[in-house]
């Protein structure tokens, strides 16, 4: 039972992280029906910014907000200056521009801050004694913090989407850009804001997750696998559904933890392969995911 709870807790923690990055993918996909492959590298860059600010003596909480501001700006600029001009050409062009951003940002991180691993300051209590005991199993404070942060982001996002004029515009653009434009929505502005918002969520997630997720350090490849996990989670839930990202992320996190714990014959180190299998199975058999509204594929 304790072991089961341990695995459940670690699955929910990891799942909450996937939820956050998956949400940032979903926010972009909803507005511009594209997957931002550079999403993980946006988060990596802003995590580096946060790390750098803390080495200058800034408290980590302030650094977090600074990182989110930088992320927001990057998202807006990337959409306006790089993605929008090639969007009309075709999907491949968008994809390749995003991959260009991916390498350029990854290289820029190494160029500015060096390629060696960085010890990242903890924003959540992460000491050896910071835990509750529930039915003999340890529940660390930082795990709770991550789950609470995820709930906070999800609540704020759903308030934004459902209760504000901007959210209404975003939903309008997501449903039908032409009609939205005819109804007076400034589609371009909404797209830029979506990308900015998405990158800000990614930055928030990045700063939270780097100290929690092994190897607990910031290095240049930190976000490769996280992007894959988050994509798997987002696809599982449905790429255009925020609710789907939450369910998909948590389900993916828990499933991963359970499989690694119980299916020991698989060796416990095949997470990425597991994600690959999930991605393929979802795309082949149910491309809309669990909660996706639209058909993604038309034959």
């Amino acid at each position: 039972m304790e072991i089961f709870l341990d695995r459940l807790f670690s699955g929910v923690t990891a799942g909450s992280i996937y939820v956050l990055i998956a949400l940032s993918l979903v926010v972009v996909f909803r507005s511009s029906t594209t997957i931002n492959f550079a999403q993980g590298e946006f988060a990596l860059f802003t995590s580096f910014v946060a790390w750098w600010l803390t080495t200058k003596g800034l408290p980590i909480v302030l650094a977090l907000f600074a990182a989110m501001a930088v992320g927001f700006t990057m998202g807006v600029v990337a959409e306006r200056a790089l993605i929008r001009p090639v969007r009309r050409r075709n999907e491949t062009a968008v994809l390749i521009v995003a991959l260009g951003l991916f390498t350029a940002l990854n290289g820029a991180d190494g160029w500015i801050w060096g390629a060696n691993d960085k010890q990242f300051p903890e924003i959540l209590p992460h000491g050896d004694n910071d835990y509750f005991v529930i039915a003999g199993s340890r529940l660390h404070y930082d795990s709770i913090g991550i789950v609470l942060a995820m709930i906070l982001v999800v609540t704020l996002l759903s308030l934004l989407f459902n209760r504000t004029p901007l959210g209404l515009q975003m939903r309008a653009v997501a449903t039908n850009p032409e009609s939205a434009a005819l109804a007076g929505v400034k589609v371009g502005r909404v797209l830029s804001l979506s990308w900015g918002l998405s990158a800000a969520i990614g930055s928030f997630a990045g700063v939270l997750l780097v100290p929690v997720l092994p190897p607990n350090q910031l290095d240049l490849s930190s976000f490769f696998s996280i992007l894959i996990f988050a994509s798997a989670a987002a696809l599982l839930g449905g790429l255009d559904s925020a609710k789907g990202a939450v369910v998909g992320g948590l389900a993916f996190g828990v499933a991963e933890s359970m499989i690694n714990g119980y299916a020991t014959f698989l060796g416990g180190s095949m997470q990425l392969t597991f994600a690959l299998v999930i991605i393929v199975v979802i795309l082949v058999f149910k491309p809309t995911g669990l909660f996706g509204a639209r058909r993604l594929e038309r034959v």
Partner: protein
Amino acid sequence: MSERTRPYVVHRGTTTHRVMIGAGLILAAAFVLWARGFGQFNQGQITRVMIYAIAIAGLNIATGYTGLVSVGHSAFFGLGAYTTGVLVVSHGWKPEATIPVALFVCFVVGLVVGLPALRIRGLYLAIVTLAFGVAFPEVVARLSTITGGAEGLTIRRAMLQPPTWSGFAIGQKGKWLFWLSLFVLVVVMIVVHNLVRSRYGLALMAARDNELAAAASGINLATVKTVAFGVSGALTGVGGSLFAMYLGSLVANDSFTLLNAIALLTGLVIGGEGTRFGPILGGIAVVYIPYYTSDIGQGQAAAVLFGAVLILIMFIAPEGVAGGIGRLGRNVMVLVPATPKRPGGERSSARGLGGNSERPRRQGQSIGGEMATPTD
């Protein structure tokens, strides 16, 4: 100017065309003879260019000609390399004998990876290939008993000696690899050339340009796409196999990561998607850009530059360098298909036109490029 200067029209298969091909071959041969005398380091660089050109030529089949963007070809590159590595180290094979095996293994895996392409397109296929590329090092680490795991696999120098029939001495591994890579590159170029001009190649491009129309014209999209992915993976795997011989030590987390896959894709986009010489230009870019920028920005300048160039190319010349040169070149000269032979097999008309084609012909609009087929 009221009228644009008409480009020079050359028919395929005429004397002029043959002379131009001959001149190109002589230039290439001259370069090879020149490169033969290079020092060890520079010759090694040329060998790497050729290896990457082979790998990118493979990627070109899927991404350039069929429109299936793959962000995971580093995995095929790695798979080819590990096939060679494992066969040489654990089973005592001759390195050059492993190339066909790498080709076959990567072809089969390519078919399997290509299967989702039947239902998945565009971005979604890119995610699948991305996940494939990211998962590859993990699988290598998992199969550590065969692959040496995270520590890597070292092929001892003694195992990579040139075979006796090649006529190279024991120490001339570099020279032997140079010629071997050149041979493989030439074979790959010829295969790609013939493939692209075959019925099957036309089917690939039709599937890329308009799936519905292609299917309506009787193209079996399922077969075409899956086989394209298989061939693509196989050629890239051959590149990987040569890479294993070149490098002698394989570390999946170094050489076959996502960044590597993006480097291959960058090479292809810079060189020119769906062009025959694009992969060679791409190979040059992939090898020499990091080389000349290694002193800048803690060795990370190459990645930044790759990214910037990738974006820039999409903005200013989506057809890549080879495509751009081709487009500019068509202002000066256009190559048009040979006039079909008359029934009866007489070549009289083709001969006659061959004479004429020395001068620009008065026919249609001059800027139609390859579409400007003359009528009799």
